[in-house]
């Protein structure tokens, strides 16, 4: 599940039909996500809430900021997790396993 604090895909985005509709720099828009990154992943991190002690090391080290800490258990935004494995590698409790994605 994904935490509500994280940005998401802009599903309303349509490619510009004319020059006038084109985005020109950040004066027009910031934070416009038009594609997910989930397809980059071979393995997905799965957090075992029972083993997690909430040290938040995974949360702080995750380059993509996809781990959420607002819920009782940590959440992962699988739309934008790239499966780098840093979270699992750094977890001091071995609470995160990297599970192969099935296609």
């Amino acid at each position, binding site marked *: 599940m994904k*935490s509500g*604090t*994280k*940005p998401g895909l802009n599903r309303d*985005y349509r*490619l*510009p039909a004319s020059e006038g509709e084109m*985005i020109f*720099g*950040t004066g027009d*828009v*910031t*934070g*416009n*996500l*038009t*594609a*997910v*990154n989930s397809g*980059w*992943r071979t393995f997905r991190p799965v957090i075992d809430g029972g083993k997690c002690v909430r040290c*938040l090391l995974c*949360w*702080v*080290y995750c*380059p*993509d*900021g996809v781990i*959420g*800490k*607002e819920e009782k258990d940590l959440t992962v935004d699988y739309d*934008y997790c*790239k*499966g*780098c*494995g*840093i979270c*699992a*590698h*750094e977890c001091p409790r071995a609470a995160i396993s990297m599970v192969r994605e099935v296609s």
Partner: protein
Amino acid sequence: MAIDYKNLSDRELIYGQKSCPGCGATIAVRLALKILGERTFVCLPACCVSATTNVYPETSFFVNNVVTAFPATGSTLAGMAAAAEMQGLEDVVILGVAGDGGTADIGLQALSGLCERNDNVIYLCYDNEAYMNTGIQRSSSTPWGAWTTTSPVGGTAKGETKIRKNLFDIIAAHRVPYCATASTSYPRDFMEKIAKAKNIRGARFIHIQAPCPTGWGYPAEKTIEYGRLAVESGLWYLAEYENGEVKLNLHPPKFKPVEFYLKGQHRFRHLTEEDYKVIEDQRDQEWALLEKKIKS
């Protein structure tokens, strides 16, 4: 300011960017923005961060940002700071984010001018130790012995032949109000430095080592591990310059052998035991210089 991860915002101000899995540079920017907040105006030159956050029509910064010419970060920042002042914007942070090539090489002159004028900005240089965005060319921050496409290995060539510039010393020599080094593997230390910089006026410079799985050649999950090994083996140090004084934030009681750091990285895999010795000697000389500067 003591940083407690629990109390930091769960919101992200950089998200969905197309950087490689495990990218250290992305960690640096993400954590800096956590402390600086939404009223940050970012300026970036050509580099991995600008290239991966602005893939039209996608924009992965959730704060205002501008991409400037490769050598122009310092001068663009100066203009932004002047504009903010003219408009009476008191609550904004002007943040430069640039790579090592954009900082130690092509952007050095503009950065020097910025420091000399003491313009009111924070300049964050993330150091992945080469020109990565264009396919791994050496910079003046590439360490001795490292393979890059322009410091090749083969025949008599053994990778980079020159000793890297010390940016921390270069900027401190401008007598700026704040200058520090950091590492993405020491996020608390880094965020404390960003928080400190936020509350200082004038030119503030933070140089953060940001390991790069693609350019250094190691598995993506080891970004934090390698950054930690660099510090533990004395090949990177965590220091601050403030009020004319240099302070060390962490002194490894005994350095780990450099081979733990060097061995698993593709860019160093041609190095021999003798080369490790050369690197240890260089390290010891660097630390001798550093220790002379530290107030005892």
